[in-house]
């Protein structure tokens, strides 16, 4: 009852938004920016995603709206923490609170329209596949989970096998080296934050449009922070980050399922968090890109 294909699917559904958001965080941090505002950006993506899906009637349009909202929020972050620049910790936390305010304000204005569930984006299992357990499982994996996995492959390739990836990582590790190579650090970080914001927004939309098909105040409930933790857990490498998100998804799916064993559900609900801490205790620790958290003061 607890471990079966449905369990894995549940874990995947839980992990999918985290995976996409964590990818955004990864890119921002690789460019040397501490992206604590990710929670707020994700929340904006979640709201605009559902708005787009409900008003256009097309969930993919909703995803695009979430992405666009994320890009805008990412650019706002860039204006504040790259161009001014302010302290990345405070700004991130303040932006999270502001995002709760902005999204719930817009939600008040649009609440009546948002009463309908947004359309689904699941695939139906084709007839030929219904007999084959593996095929059925693969078709039951949410499309966005596939998208996330593809995105990981893409980001992994770009970061570690292409020129822009090397340049981006150099900016994150040493602004001195980047300057000496003639890179424009603020612009690189602006673009990185736009992409990071876009992915975080997309992840937010994956939560609302792709998963629960509705919105509520502060629906992300700390998922942005968990994505951040997954990146730290993953030592700033895509595949370990992916693994961190999946691990968390598995932990939470487990927490929800172990309830059937009886006992107080809240004790089970601690599983994903305790699991993460325990794994950290045994995991090799990594080092953040050197420039993360330091404001770029020009030269």
């Amino acid at each position, binding site marked *: 009852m607890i471990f079966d294909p449905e369990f894995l699917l549940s874990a995947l559904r839980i992990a999918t938004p985290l995976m996409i958001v964590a990818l955004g965080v990864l890119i921002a941090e690789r460019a040397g920016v*501490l992206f604590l505002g990710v929670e707020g950006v994700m929340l904006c993506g979640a709201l605009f995603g559902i708005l787009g899906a409900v008003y256009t009637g097309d969930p993919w349009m909703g995803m695009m709206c979430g992405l666009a909202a994320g890009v805008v929020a990412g650019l706002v972050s860039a204006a*504040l923490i790259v161009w*001014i*620049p*302010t*302290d990345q*910790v*405070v*700004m991130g*936390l*303040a*932006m*999270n*609170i*502001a995002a*709760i*305010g*902005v*999204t*719930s*304000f817009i*939600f*008040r*204005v649009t609440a009546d329209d948002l009463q309908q569930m947004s359309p689904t984006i699941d695939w139906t299992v084709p007839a030929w596949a219904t007999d084959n357990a593996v095929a059925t499982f693969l078709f039951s994996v949410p499309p966005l989970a596939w998208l996330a996995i593809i995105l990981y492959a893409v980001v992994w390739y770009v970061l570690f096998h292409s020129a822009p990836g090397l340049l981006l990582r150099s900016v994150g590790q040493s602004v001195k080296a980047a300057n000496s190579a003639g890179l424009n650090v603020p612009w690189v970080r602006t673009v990185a934050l736009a992409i990071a914001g876009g992915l975080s927004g997309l992840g937010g939309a994956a939560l609302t449009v792709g998963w629960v098909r509705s919105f509520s*105040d502060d629906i992300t409930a*700390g998922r942005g*922070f*968990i994505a*951040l*933790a997954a990146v*730290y*857990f993953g030592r700033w490498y895509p595949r370990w980050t992916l693994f961190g998100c999946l691990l968390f998804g598995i932990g939470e799916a487990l927490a929800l399922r172990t309830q059937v064993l009886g006992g*107080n559900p*809240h*004790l089970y*609900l*601690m599983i*994903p*968090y*305790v699991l*993460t*801490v325990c794994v*950290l*205790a*045994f*995991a090799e*620790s990594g080092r*953040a890109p050197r420039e*993360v*958290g*330091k*404001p770029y003061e020009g030269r």
Partner: protein
Amino acid sequence: MKTPQISMRFDGFQLFSDIGIFVLSLLAAMLLVAGLVELIGGDALAALSAMVEGVVGSRQAIVETVIEATPTALCGLAFLIPFKAGFFNIGAQGHLQLGALAAVFVTTTFTLPAPLMIPLALVVSALAGMLLIAPSLVLKVKRGANEVTTTVMLNFVAIEFVLAMVTGPMQQPDSFFAESNLIPADYRLPVMVVHVGVFLAVAIIVAAGWILKHTVFGFRLDALGGNPSAAGALGMRTGATLAKAVLVAGAIGGIAGGIQALGVVFQVAEHWAKPWGFLGILAALMGRNPVGVIFAALLLAGLEIGGRNMQAMTGVPAALVFLLQSVPVLLLLAVRSTHFFKMMSLPGASR
């Protein structure tokens, strides 16, 4: 991560410029809120006056603001102290939850004379906070695990644990929702205009400020935060210094919860705590030193109380409260970080 420097000096220029910028940011935020209220067809003037009324309208309002600021300020301190040593403690919310739970547990389970019980309960909440932060400390020192990750995770653990207790062994029998028993009247913090927890908190913060500024321990924290390898090479016991700072932070976070339980809510329950832990981080980074934290916490609490009153009295969306809290902070930090203000407040920069 490099620790941004938190200046311990309270020099005149910085203070006045901070106040100036803050007032301007506040005005800007209020204008924004007024605009939004008009946008949804409300009465902006009524809203803003309700807000001001809510903070300074009465003695009661002021008292409420002070009480509301207390946990924020303590949580701010719980962030600030290890932050000086380069440790990002995002876990104050969890310490507070567990500290309150511990205080409630002790006071609702045992009987003792009140003058013994209240300090005991506070000590136990401090221990609870330390217990929760200990894994982050150990993992950081022994395994190099990033403390942001672990403290965030332990927050969630604490919240779920409190919920498990208030829906389980500690639930008030026959209660209609998830809540613990009430702390007996004898064991509540005495009230002198405000409950004495407020004075205790101020005492803790002032003492912490003094310790950070005037003691060897504070000096070592600065050195550790500024350059851990130099601190080690020069013979400071870095592990022990960090451990002290981190455990003290846990204890302060726990006490924040204990004070809140013993002085304000008298129980723990589902959703009993506001995000004081997170507001505390804001207060710490706005205030930059323990005394500054008090003022920052008062401002955040004032905006909260005022904003709530505005919401309740005029029916405008509660979302505006969050905007009221965050927009001035954003503006304040943005302006304070601009080049001009940096140059002005750097010691020895203009030569």
